[in-house]
Structure formats: structure tokens, C-alpha cells
């Protein structure tokens, strides 16, 4: 009698515990509860029940299934192809994989703004300088929205390395960057796959000067020499991405890739002049000059130095308002907090985060002079001068929180980061003319721009109008060039059409290096992608040489590290295979046994059906 009462009590306790300790696994609880109640009632001794409890209260590890977020072929043909190849490799390694395609802006919104993804495949805008890695990977940015740490990657040692390469210059910096890249090769916060080679088609009969500036940068569109009487009236570009016709906000992350068109509308203090071969140098632009004062100012600590910037005289915005040092100081304050202090927490812009973070303080000392207090070495601080200068009178009111009646908008969403910004008011060499969504955006020469002054020796806008026509496919873009309906393709051509292009006397294929790269990004906020061993194993499932041949038709370079060529340390240079994490297999085919061994050596387990089981 007493036995059965005790048995029932224990059963009830077991049920309570079973339902209380785990809110997640639905069928686990019911199975356990059922077992406990039926078996428990008939079990005589409490010791037996305890053992039973020890057995049934252990959760099983589920097979891993993940989703690769990427772009459809209309958005980026190479990305979806890479995603499919990677999905096949993951499937071979026993990971259930599906692919989700999202349009350009929705893809970036998922990855950069909402961090709502497992892994993604896409193109990173990269940078001519390796300092872009600071904003891409510093753990302080893991919860911010934008290009700053979309991976949620957090590693204190890497943070240190990211910071130390910022503090020094010259040879010391090169060494610091090398240490950083070595650490990243081990950590694999994302898997760098390859750097594309950029191809564009241009017509030589109407303009000359295509070989001077890289066409992904503003100077590529300036200084072109019209070859016929009529050609100075209009430069006709074909763009394969409709987003510039929909949104011209220079600080929006979802609608910008490298922001080339926005750079024609907005000036920056300095500009990275990149030539067609990729050689680049930072040169004064809106700033006439800048001078470094070594840290003898008493207000500065020993880590800080200051930079005095002198603006060119009499610059104006497209609406006629003068551009003063106050606008510049405003821009840096605004990019650091687009709410201008009006929000509970700062709302930094989703672009230029790393550049702005290099500036501790900025002060306009008169109409044309600014005093920057910088927290980094000179090389990195000078790059902070490349952000677009915004007119204070237009953007101040955009510090307000965006609102939709009846809807709770995400914290830190200011009007500034979501506005379409049409018409854009900048101070750049071109001003906004007209647009039709998904058809064209037309810019007009800004006559008052400083580049058109006689005493300024910089390339200027040489055409009355720049019409950027939207045409979503390479094949029809090529036809427009061949029919003399366009002068250049401002986007890069898709690789599969390049072999078929027939160059003529007037039509020429331009080849230029890129500082962007294709990569597989992990969302380290989710298990098991936060585990560097897991990431290393996945990196070894990608045959980078093979995908370059297969997906890119050879028009790309496989990479082991994500920086521009000149910064790649010798030990991380591509030597026919990945120097650190070589592919487990050959010719694109994963060696299933080797992959399995690698995952097992990394502490993961397989079930009898060959599925990778991972706690997630």
C-alpha cells in the first residue's frame, strides 16, 4: 500500500520536472511523461525510477539542417551558382541544406539589418585597404545593423589584432595586418572564396579615357574625353541593377553595393583614386589639403593625434546652399549617430562605421577649417576622409525616428537610414536630374563643382548628362553597346557571356581587378556556426579553384584571405590550393570519408544514416 503511494508521488514529481525543465522539445516531453507515468506506476523501487529518469531525461542531438541565403540569378548569377555548389558539398558531408533566394535589397536586409540567416553566399564590397575588416569583424559591432559585423563574430584576440593594425603605419602596419589575416584564416568568421575580375564593355568611338579611372569609382566617370561633337551631351551607361533608380541614399545599406553612383552625387574630403589596373592613392578632393599635428596638443592623450583639414573655397550643394566646415563636422557626428542623441541609444549609420570610428572628435574652427582628433594611425585615419559629406540643412530633420502608424518600428531606425533620398542633394560633380524606377536615373553636370575650376587639377565631369539606363541582363546590355545605344556598362558583365563578346574597332572589353570578394558568411549567433572548428570544416568543403573555373569561367582568382592583392602575405597567397585549409576532395567532388573524418575530428558526430548531428 505504502509502496504504491510512494510510486505515484515519484511519478508525479517526475512528470512535473519533465515538463518543467525543457520548454523546447515538444515530443520529447510527451514521450518522457508517458514513459514515466506508465512504467513508473508499475516500478516497485525508487532506485529503478531514478535510473529511468537519468536515461529518459537526456536530450538527443538532432541532425543539422541549414539554409543558405543568397541572390537569384537575376540578382547575382555567380552567387546562386556558388550557393548550389556549396549546398551539394554540404549535402555530401551529411548536412541537410536548402537555399533561399532573396532580391538584392531583401538579401542585404536579411543579412545586414535583421541578421536573419544561417549562412549566406554573396559578394562583399571589401576595400582597397584591409581596414574594412575592422568594421566587418569587431565584436563591439555584433549587435549593430549594417556592414558592421553582420556575422555576429566575437573574438577578443581578433579584436586586439583589428585594433593594433589601426594604430600603426607603414611596415609595422603591414606586419600587424599579416598577424590579423593569419588569425582570421584560423577562425574563418566567413570563408573567402574568390575575387572576381571585373569586365565592362565600352565604346571607344564616342569617348576616350576609359583606361584612366576604375569604373567602380567616381573618377572613372570624370575626365572622359568626348570624341565627337555630340558625344559631350550625354554619357550613356547601362546598369544591370535597378536599385540606383529606386533609392539614392548614400548611407542606406540595402540599396548600395559600392555606391559608385552615390559617389558622383556626394563629395568626400578625400578620394581613393584607383586606376584601371587597381593601383590606388588617396588624394585630396573636397579638402584642399590636410596636415598632421603630432600629439603635442595638451588636450590629446598619447594615443591621439590631430588632423587639420582645409576645405576648398566657395563650394556649394546642388540646392545652392554653401558647403561649410559645419556640414563636414555634422556629417561625422551624424554618421556616428543618425539620431543625433535623440534616441535612447546611438543609431550609427549602416555604412562607413569603421571610418567614422577612427575619428574621436571633429570641430569646425572656421568656415573652411576642421580639426579632427583621431584615435588611429595616419593611414587608417586618412581613409576616414572618404565618407560622403551630407548637407546639414537636409539631414538634421532625418534624425527623427521613422514611424508607421500602429506599428512598432525597430529601435534605432531613423528616417535617415530608410529614406529613398530622391532627389539627392549633395555637392558632387553630378546632380540629380530625373529618374523612372527600374528604367533609368539621369544625372546632370553640376556646373559649380570645384573640379571645373581652372586652378584645380582634378578630373571633371565632361558631359552635360549621365544617363544610367537599367537593363537587367548582360546579353541585352551588350546588345545596347553594340547597337551604339550605350557607351559603357557601369556594372560588371556576368562571366558566362564574356567568351562570346566580339570586340570591334569601336567596342572594347575592359578588364580590371576588383577589391570585392565572394564569400560564405556564417551567422555566429546561431549554433553550430559560432564554433570555429565547424567553420573550418565547412571551409574545406569548398573547392575554390574548381568553382573559379566552373562558376566564374576562370574570370576570378581563388583566395585564402579577403584583402586586395598587395596586402596578401606570402604565406597566405594562393598556390594552386588553399595554403591553410585545402579542399577535402578533388575536382569539386567532396571526399565523403575525409569530410566525415574532419567533422568527427572537430568533435561532431554522425548517425547511422550518415547525417551530421549537431547540438543547435
Amino acid at each position, binding site marked *: 500500500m505504502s509502496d504504491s503511494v510512494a510510486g505515484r508521488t515519484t511519478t508525479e514529481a517526475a512528470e512535473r520536472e519533465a515538463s518543467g525543465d525543457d520548454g523546447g522539445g515538444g515530443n520529447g516531453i510527451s514521450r518522457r511523461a508517458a514513459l514515466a507515468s506508465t512504467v513508473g506506476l508499475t516500478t516497485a523501487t525508487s532506485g529503478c525510477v531514478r535510473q529511468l529518469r537519468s536515461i529518459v531525461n537526456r536530450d538527443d542531438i538532432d541532425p543539422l539542417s541549414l539554409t543558405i541565403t543568397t541572390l*537569384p*540569378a537575376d540578382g547575382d548569377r555567380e552567387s546562386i551558382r556558388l550557393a548550389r555548389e556549396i549546398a551539394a558539398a554540404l549535402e555530401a558531408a551529411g548536412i541537410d541544406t536548402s537555399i533561399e533566394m532573396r532580391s538584392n535589397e*531583401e538579401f542585404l536586409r536579411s543579412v545586414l539589418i535583421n541578421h536573419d540567416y544561417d549562412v549566406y553566399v554573396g559578394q562583399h564590397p571589401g576595400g582597397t585597404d584591409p581596414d574594412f575588416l575592422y568594421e566587418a569583424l569587431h565584436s563591439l559591432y555584433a549587435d549593430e545593423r549594417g556592414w558592421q559585423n553582420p556575422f555576429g563574430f566575437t573574438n577578443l584576440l581578433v579584436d586586439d589584432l583589428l585594433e593594433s593594425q589601426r594604430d600603426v603605419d607603414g611596415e609595422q602596419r603591414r606586419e600587424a595586418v599579416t598577424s590579423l589575416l593569419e588569425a582570421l584564416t584560423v577562425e574563418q568568421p566567413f570563408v573567402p572564396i574568390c575575387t572576381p575580375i571585373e569586365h565592362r564593355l565600352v565604346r571607344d568611338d564616342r569617348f576616350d579615357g576609359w583606361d584612366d579611372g576604375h569604373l567602380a569609382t567616381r573618377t572613372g566617370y570624370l575626365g572622359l574625353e568626348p570624341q565627337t561633337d555630340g558625344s559631350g551631351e550625354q554619357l550613356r551607361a547601362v546598369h544591370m541593377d535597378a536599385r540606383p533608380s529606386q533609392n539614392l541614399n548614400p548611407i542606406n545599406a540595402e540599396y548600395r553595393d559600392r555606391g559608385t553612383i552615390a559617389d558622383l552625387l556626394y563629395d568626400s574630403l578625400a578620394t581613393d583614386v584607383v586606376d584601371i589596373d587597381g593601383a590606388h592613392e588617396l588624394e585630396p578632393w573636397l579638402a584642399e589639403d590636410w596636415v598632421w599635428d603630432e600629439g603635442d596638443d595638451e588636450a590629446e592623450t598619447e594615443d591621439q593625434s590631430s588632423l587639420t583639414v582645409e576645405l576648398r573655397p566657395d563650394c556649394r550643394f546642388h540646392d545652392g546652399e554653401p558647403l561649410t566646415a559645419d556640414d563636414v563636422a555634422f556629417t561625422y557626428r551624424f554618421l556616428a549617430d543618425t539620431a543625433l542623441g535623440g534616441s535612447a541609444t546611438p543609431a550609427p549609420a549602416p555604412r562607413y562605421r569603421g571610418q567614422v570610428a577612427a575619428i574621436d572628435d571633429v570641430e569646425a574652427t572656421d568656415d573652411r577649417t576642421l580639426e579632427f582628433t583621431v584615435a588611429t594611425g595616419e593611414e587608417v585615419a586618412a581613409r576616414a576622409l572618404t565618407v560622403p559629406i551630407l548637407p546639414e540643412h537636409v539631414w538634421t530633420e532625418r534624425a527623427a525616428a521613422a514611424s508607421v502608424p500602429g506599428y512598432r518600428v525597430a529601435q534605432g531606425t531613423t528616417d535617415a537610414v530608410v529614406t529613398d533620398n530622391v532627389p539627392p542633394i549633395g555637392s558632387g560633380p553630378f546632380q540629380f536630374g530625373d529618374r523612372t524606377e527600374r528604367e533609368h536615373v539621369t544625372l546632370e553636370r553640376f556646373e559649380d563643382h570645384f573640379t571645373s575650376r581652372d586652378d584645380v587639377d582634378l578630373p571633371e565631369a565632361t558631359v552635360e548628362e549621365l544617363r544610367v539606363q537599367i537593363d537587367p*541582363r548582360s546579353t541585352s546590355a551588350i*546588345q545596347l553597346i553594340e547597337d551604339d*545605344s550605350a557607351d559603357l556598362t557601369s556594372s560588371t558583365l556576368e562571366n558566362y557571356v564574356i567568351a562570346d563578346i566580339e570586340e570591334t574597332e569601336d567596342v572594347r572589353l575592359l578588364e580590371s581587378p576588383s577589391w570585392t570578394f565572394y564569400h560564405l558568411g556564417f551567422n555566429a549567433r546561431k549554433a553550430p556556426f559560432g564554433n570555429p572548428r565547424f567553420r573550418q570544416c565547412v571551409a574545406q568543403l569548398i573547392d575554390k579553384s574548381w568553382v573559379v573555373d566552373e562558376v566564374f569561367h576562370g574570370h576570378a582568382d581563388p583566395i585564402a584571405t579577403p584583402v586586395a592583392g598587395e596586402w596578401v602575405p606570402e604565406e597566405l597567397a594562393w598556390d594552386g590550393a588553399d595554403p591553410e585549409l585545402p579542399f577535402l576532395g578533388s575536382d569539386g567532388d567532396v571526399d565523403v570519408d575525409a569530410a566525415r573524418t574532419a567533422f568527427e575530428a572537430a568533435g561532431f558526430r554522425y548517425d547511422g544514416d550518415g547525417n551530421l548531428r549537431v547540438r543547435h
Partner: protein
Amino acid sequence: MLVRVLLQLTVVVTLMILISTALFVGRYRLRDTRVEWRSRIRAAAPITIALAVVLLFNSVARQIVPDLSWMIDWNFTEPIYDIEGEFILWLQSQATPAVTAYFSFIYIYGYVFLLIFPVVAYFALSNTRPLRELLTAYTLNYALGLLLYTFVIAYGPRNMMPDLVEALLYDTYPQYQHLTRQVNRNTNVFPSLHTSLAATVSFLAYRTREIYPTWNLLAAGLGVSVAISTMYLGIHWVIDVLAGIVLAYISVELAGVLVGRWSLSEWLDGHVPSLGAFRDSNE
């Protein structure tokens, strides 16, 4: 570019319609039409206006539908691919240049002809019911199609497997891209509106097979060709095409129920006697 493609389309389709009218409609029906066209237009006017309104709304809504769809965010591409696998690949493996040319022609010219010619053919009949059913079915296709497009995001095979599924139309004839992107968005593939409208015509042609027996055969052939062309060219999945046929069936059945249920002219006669009297005196 767009103007040139449009002009070419207009000329070719007009020629096809003229020839078909001569072949299928015949002299006698045209003679009657010359006498009766006023009353026929009056009978078909309400539904024609409804169709025009839906088309107009459609062209405006197309600008905002993708925004709404991404807010709802129901992405169907992966489930569709999971279910049907790689049928499209098999279909494309049958490709030859001649077949590609045929289906490209069907997708653009055959389709437009298939949609316009029955309007002419049914207008030439004294009984306006087929014409009204046709226009009602078109209206329903567009209205229901737009609703589905709003809720479902799905990319076609060419977007998912660009290496395996060649975008035959756009790579072989890039100029058509300019035409189709005026009408289609790449996330709107479920259902195939090409298939549903073509199937609608085929279904109605079957209903009027006693009047136009040869047209029934031609419409069936063209309808099947259009459905296959959408898959062959890598634009639609099989599931989109099947959904298109279901949509066509629903639209035709609904049109059968709806047409003749309400009469605008009777309503006018009852409510606006002066107008009715005016019209009678006019006849």
C-alpha cells in the same frame, strides 16, 4: 529597343489575326457584324470596362506588389523545387535550335495572338455570350493572379539553376527582355499567367467547338505549346503551369456562372427610364 520590339510584335500579330479572321470567321459573319456591331459592343461594354479597370489597376499594382510580397515574405521557390525536382532540366535537354525558335515564337507572338484573336472571333458572333464569358474569364485571371502574386514569392527555374536551365529566350533573343520585363516581375512565377490565359482560351474554344471547329483545334495546340514554352524556356516550374491550368479552369467556370446573372441594361431600364427611352428611340 522597346519600341522596335513592340512594332515588330504589332505587325506580326496583326497579320496573324487578319489571316485567321479570313480563315475562321468568314465573310458572312463579318457582314452581320457590320450591321450588328453597335448592339454587340453595348452588350460587351460593362465587362470590357471591368477588364480595362482590372488591367489598369494591375499595371499600377505591379509597382507595389513586390514590396507587399516581401513584407509578407512567403518564399515558395524551395518547396516547389523540392517537390518537382529537375523536370525542367529534362525538358531543356531536348533543346534544339529549331525547337527553341518555335517556343520563343510561341511565348511572345503565339501567346499574344492566342489572347487577341478570340476577341475578334467571338465579336463576330450574333450571340455575345462567348465574348462576354471570354472577357470575364480574362478579368478573373488577372484579378486572381494578382492576388496570388501578392502572397507568393517564387523565382523561376532560370533564376535557381542558371547554369543548367538556360534562359533560352533572353539569351537567344535578348531584345525580348525589354518587352517581358514591362509585364512580368521575376518573383511572380506562381501561377503561370501565360498558361492560365492560354488555357482559358483553349477551354472556351472547346465550348464553342460547334461554331469554330478548326479554331478549337488550333487553340488547343497553341494552348499546350504556350504551357510547354514557359517551362522549356526556363521561366516557369511545372507547378506554376499546373496552377495556371487550375486558375484557368476556375476562371472559366466562374465566368460561366457570372455572365448573364446581372444585366446592366435591364438595371438601367428599371432605374433610368429616360436613358432607356433615349436608347430605344436611337435604335
